[in-house]
């Protein structure tokens, strides 16, 4: 057998290559069936990057539908709550140029907000409860409603349906526990007075 293969180098190479092809084909085929990825992983990844406010400002009914839309080729700059940071991370993920936020869908707000129901004025119509995408409003018909502040995403969707306009969007006040150090201004943005020429350049800046 070995002698035969040695005598026929062409044939033995052929046999070796074919057997390798068959083996790896079988392995790959098995892996394709056994380790099949359910769903579209890119949608999952996009969904994880979106802020999950479920506000619908992008024109889709929630963050996941927008993630799906992005995966299907929609623009990535339609998410005001996520802002430029989210756009940048999505652009990173999709390996595309990061556009600026599309102002058509709203502006990025500086501070986080939560809904607050002025409870004296609430008439208990349940309209805001139906509008809340994350079930963060408690209440029942003809009973006063209230917002679970820790679950509120600040999506604004409850404000419009309120017939008595008793919902305010209040900025979340920062406390000692969520306080963080500020990033120092970079040196080139600060007017420095180290040498004489700094004065003019500092003034110019």
């Amino acid at each position, binding site marked *: 057998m070995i002698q035969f293969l040695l005598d026929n180098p062409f044939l033995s190479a052929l046999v070796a290559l074919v057997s390798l092809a068959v083996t790896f084909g079988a392995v790959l085929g098995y892996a394709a069936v056994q380790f099949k990825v359910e769903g579209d992983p890119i949608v999952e990844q996009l969904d994880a990057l979106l802020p*999950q406010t479920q506000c619908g400002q992008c024109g889709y009914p929630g963050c996941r539908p927008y993630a799906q839309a992005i995966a299907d080729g929609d623009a990535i700059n339609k998410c005001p709550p996520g802002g430029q940071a989210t756009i940048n991370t999505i652009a990173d993920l999709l390996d595309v140029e990061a556009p600026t936020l599309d102002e058509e869908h709203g502006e990025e707000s500086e501070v986080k907000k939560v809904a607050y129901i002025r409870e004296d004025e609430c008439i208990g119509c349940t309209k805001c409860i139906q509008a809340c995408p994350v079930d963060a409003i408690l209440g029942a018909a003809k009973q006063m409603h209230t917002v679970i502040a820790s*679950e509120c995403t600040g999506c604004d969707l409850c404000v419009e349906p309120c017939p008595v306009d008793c919902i305010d969007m209040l900025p979340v006040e920062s406390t000692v526990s969520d306080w963080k*150090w500020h990033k120092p201004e970079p040196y080139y943005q600060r007017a420095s007075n180290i040498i004489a020429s700094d004065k003019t350049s500092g003034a110019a800046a």
Partner: protein
Amino acid sequence: MTKIWTIPGGVHPEERKEQSLQLPLAEIALPKELVFPLSQHIGAPADPVVKVGERVLGGQLIAAAHGIFSAAIHASTSGTVSAIEERPLPHPSSMPGECIVIEADGEDEHIAYQACEDYMQLSKAEMVKRVRAAGITGLGGASFPTAVKLNPKSNQPVDTFILNGTECEPYITADDMLMQTRAADVVLGAELLAHILGDPERVVIGIEDNKPKAIAAVTEAAKGKAIEVVSFPTKYPSGGEKQLIQILTGREVPSRKLPADIGVVVQNVGTAVAAYEALRFGKPLIQRITTVVGEALDTQRNILVRLGTPVAHILAEHGFQAKRASRLVMGGPMMGFALDTPDVPVVKSTNCILAPSKTELPPAAPAQACIRCGMCAEACPASLLPQQLYWYAQAEDFDRLKAHNIGDCIECGACSFVCPSNIPLVQYYRAAKGTLRQMDIERQKSDRSRQRFEFRQERIARAEAEKEAKRLARKKAAEKARQQQADKPGAAKADVVSAALASAKPKAISAEDELAKLQRAVASAQNRLEKLQQKHDESEDAAQRDKFSAQLKQAALRLQEAQAKLDARQAIPAPAEAVAGVAASATTDANDPVAAAIARAQAKMSMPPAEKLQANIDSLQQRLAKAEAKLAAARANDGDTVAALQAGVDKMNEKIAAAKQELAALAAPTAATKPEPAARPTAAAPSPAVPPVKAAPKPEKPDAASVAIAKAQQRAAALASMAPRDKLHQQVKSLEGRLEKALERLAKAEADNDDNLDAFRTGVEKTRARLQQARAELESEQ
């Protein structure tokens, strides 16, 4: 001699420790007001247990721990709770936070402390409980609740307990002073904590070699005990927990792990003394040693200060000159933070109040560009790459920051200290770490939001599905009900004729019903009459008899009426004929013989031929009966119509015979019957409807109708005998003729703008269709 390891990096800033060591430890006058922030430790804020206006004694619990990662707070002197309100906190943010404010009464009355001679005999759980109840947190600076640290997980045995007396930051000498003055208590505290931790193999007190007096005192106190007192070269930041472990054991705490994970626990010397006091004398943590230092002060020294004492009070006691001070710092110059206001209190972690003059600690020089000298990397005690971190922090590239282990930065500030460009590197890292923490919190929140959103979507979808299922069920039920209803009166047909039929049918049914009703009425009336008759006969009373006779008469009258009605009803033709009659009258009313003919033909067609013939025969027999009656009447009157009537009756008899023959022929299953239905309309169409249409206006000539019938029957017979081809041919011809006529009528109707134009049209179209069909059949035959 214990082996000593070294840490990478580190710096040697000016120590300046002698400034505060010139004077002995002192106490200052009690302030008028003490402020106790509810959150002066890592973890949840404590819950206040006193009310405004309540008098409290020194050592009394004023706020209880909220959860495990929290610590109790005790009043440090006697007084009245004047407020529980927001006050500025000793925190880099200078934000306000909830505080208990106590107005001191100056009596400094304390609760009776429960001393415990043989505290070492207590169970470990009891010891931890007491430490916890005393509100002890790490006094080194991080304020981690000590009780938590004394409860290591059972799967992480502690083999080394280190008492940290390093105090590596410049200026600060609080621990040095403590060790000098209370060395015995430090050793007892070390023994106590080591005991709680399960008597680890090694108990080490680590002291930097710049504190010779402290080293001497502690070594003296620890003589004869299983405690090593180790001094090692001074270098900042040797006092960092992880750094100290590395120096004393050579072991490195892995990234994102705790010292307990490698079997080491580190406590500050101050914490050890506080724990000893808590167990031995039952004293909670209400005071601590704090270094008050800086050239902006007249007096620089260490003081034993009550917690809650406002910094302003301490500064006033030490001759603070605000004009000379460059700033006010809580903590050391490397890791402390500047205070915006001196109105903040001393808390458990306040180890130093620094009031440097402008020459002593000048304001930070302006930062310049990074020149990539790499000095920060050399200085970093955690072996990180500070300049890379700086770039990424500037660009807010958090993925790369994480990849470069920004989490391992201990924020010691060595990198900022060595930076020749004066870049506040550590500020960038603090900001980046804060943002990362915030992002983490937001990520958790968004995950929860996603879950809630998805759950809500699912719930809505489920509700929708249920609704849809209900709707379908309702629809099904409605359809079923409709079908049942539709099945009862028979399937409705779309065309006019069937509509007419349908409308006629209920009438026919009601006629039948009426008949039955009348019959029943007659029967019951008869019954009644009989009964009354019987009663009348039986009764003897005259008055009664009269009454009965009246009733009898009434009943008889009613019976007569009913009988009359029944008779009238029975005179109406049989239902089948009534239907035909209705259909016919409906169309004749409309003056539309074509449509009428078609309708009649269709009505006929809808009947099986045998039935049709039978109906024919029936009607003929009826007519025969009438004709015979007429004949009899004429004979009786001796009228001149007798002969004519006689002829009519004879003809009728003939016709009946012919029809009966045909019926018999039909009953026989022959091939010839097949084209019968197709031939039928042409032949039979005029026959049944002829009497009402043609005979009615000419009652004196009843023969005309029967003649037509006879003709039609003859034709039918002829057709039956013909070959199918000829038959079809004939049919086509007759249809053509009818179509012509129909078209003529239609034209006329159009000219007159007749109301029944549509009916004409449909008639024409139907005739045409039939003609086409016949032609097609003919062709196929040919």
